[in-house]
């Protein structure tokens, strides 16, 4: 009887595979083949039109000796700082503050307005966000220098994006502005799960704010993990704001791997070298994703125990 039932269930489970065919075909065409071609190209010298010439690991060896390549990855680490670390910490502090202090004293409407206001930059295409700031920081007519002059700090007026000493910092500040809403909204949603009584009990036990902050961060660590992974990957892929604001300049002051690969593809016709940079980016991003999935699986195991 049992085997009969099993075969019956198996029969019911048949016939689903055909539904996967269009999806898989498109996947192979749009992702699979281009991905393999990109890896192959990274081992060749190619200008995009003629035949591809196999050169082994030459492109990778070239990358490791290339100061522009290293500059792009160093800048990338700083972008992670501006996209993941700073907004993450401020977002977490702000979320806990709103949850544990502010919303007990003021109506939820005010909290909602603060949340929506800080989230607003996130709805823009990041390129448009770049355009907005490119205009505000413009050295000739930009509002920021105008404001500095208006409040008597005219001496500080500066070509913020065009000078090597401030270009990267300016882009980083813009990214903090753009990103802050994302962790804030995710963390505030996560805090809905936290029982307010836990916090009140902690307060009664004499836990100070730092203690309570740590309790909350511990309770919402799955969301913290998700935010850290998604924003780090996002920082590694960052292209739009660099393209719009600085084109990697002045010099190589704001170059990032994504823009460096783009230059090699479409401006310098070094397609092989560009592909090697893209492949290295892929390796880092896949490595991070796998690491993240493992940590996540481990956390779930701990919670089950």
């Amino acid at each position: 009887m049992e085997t009969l039932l099993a075969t019956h269930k198996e029969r019911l489970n048949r016939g689903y595979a055909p539904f996967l065919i269009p999806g898989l075909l498109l996947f192979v065409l749009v992702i699979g083949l281009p991905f393999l071609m990109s890896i192959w190209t990274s081992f060749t010298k190619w200008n995009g039109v003629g035949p591809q010439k196999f050169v082994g690991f030459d492109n990778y060896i070239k990358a490791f000796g290339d100061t522009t390549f290293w500059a792009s990855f160093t800048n990338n680490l700083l972008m992670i700082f501006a996209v993941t670390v700073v907004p993450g910490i401020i977002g977490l502090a702000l979320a806990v503050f709103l949850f544990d202090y502010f919303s007990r004293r003021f109506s939820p409407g005010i909290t909602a307005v603060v949340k929506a206001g800080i989230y607003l930059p996130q709805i823009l295409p990041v390129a448009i966000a770049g355009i907005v700031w490119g205009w505000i920081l413009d050295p000739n007519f930009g509002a920021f220098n105008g404001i500095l002059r208006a409040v008597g700090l005219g001496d500080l007026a500066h070509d913020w994006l065009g000078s090597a000493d401030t270009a990267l910092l300016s882009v980083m500040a813009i990214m903090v502005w753009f990103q802050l809403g994302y962790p804030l909204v995710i963390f505030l949603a996560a805090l809905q799960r936290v029982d307010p009584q836990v916090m009140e009990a902690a307060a009664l036990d004499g836990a100070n704010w730092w203690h309570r902050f740590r309790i909350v961060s511990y309770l919402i660590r799955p969301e913290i993990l998700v935010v850290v992974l998604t924003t780090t990957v996002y920082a590694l892929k960052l292209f739009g704001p660099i393209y719009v604001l600085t084109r990697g300049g002045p010099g190589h002051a704001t170059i990032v791997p994504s823009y460096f690969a783009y230059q090699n593809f479409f401006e310098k016709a070094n397609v092989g070298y560009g592909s090697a940079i893209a492949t290295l980016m892929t390796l880092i991003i896949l490595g991070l994703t796998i690491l993240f999935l493992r940590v996540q699986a481990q956390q779930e195991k701990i919670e089950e125990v």
Partner: protein
Amino acid sequence: MAEKKKTWASWLALLLLAAVTLLVLSPFVIVAINAFKTPADYAAHGPLAFPAAWNTESLTTFWDRVDFTGKLFNSLYISVTVAVVGVLFALLNAFALGIGKVKGRLWFLVLFILANTLPQETLAYPIYYFAKALHIYGNPVSVILVFIVIQGAFGTYLLSSVFSAFPREMIEAAQVDGANKSTLLWKVVAPVSLPTLAVLFTFFFIWTWNEFFLPLILLPSNAAQTVPIAISVTQGQHNMDATMASASALLGLLPCLIFFLFFQRTLTRGVTAGSIK
């Protein structure tokens, strides 16, 4: 929970929060007020004053210069097509992987997650090359095809996990009644999961609208460009004065503001639906 008493410290907190929020919002305000000035007004009173008269000349000039109507249409056409077909793509895949337990489903899921995590830089040149070979380079179809897969892959992953919690009794009841797989999909699974599909549609639409890298590469001709591309390319080409630059930024961000207000309820519903699951 009773509201606590407001002390001077809590009022200070309110003041600080208001300052932070205003600081974050200030670029929007600055862009909005300067888009409505004449160049002479801007030169005379600077960026912080309100316009002497609300003048739409910069906006209309920029609108005509980039053929903004055409760009809006391009963006809408691409985003809506990707959202509709992308949801369909995710629905078919997730039906096979989440409702049916096709052999090797875990591997298929891993493939689809990878498709969504891969940096577009690694796909860009081959896609550019293939698009040229297939004569769809410069045609919105190229961008549409790519984003159907990239976003549909994310949808597959999400929808499969939603479907794995789909009530089995409903599926078995339909099959005992003699429904074949297509009937099961279109008459049972799709209608029941319509709210989730609507959330996916919204996300796909907005993500596609906001895309920059691949549309920049695949749509070089002015006639086919999307809103974000057209605005940033125009920015680079012309020597724009302050009010015109401000107008272009305002036109770039307005559609997103409208979508945000329009879709806000679907999106919050999406978040709550996710937490119930």
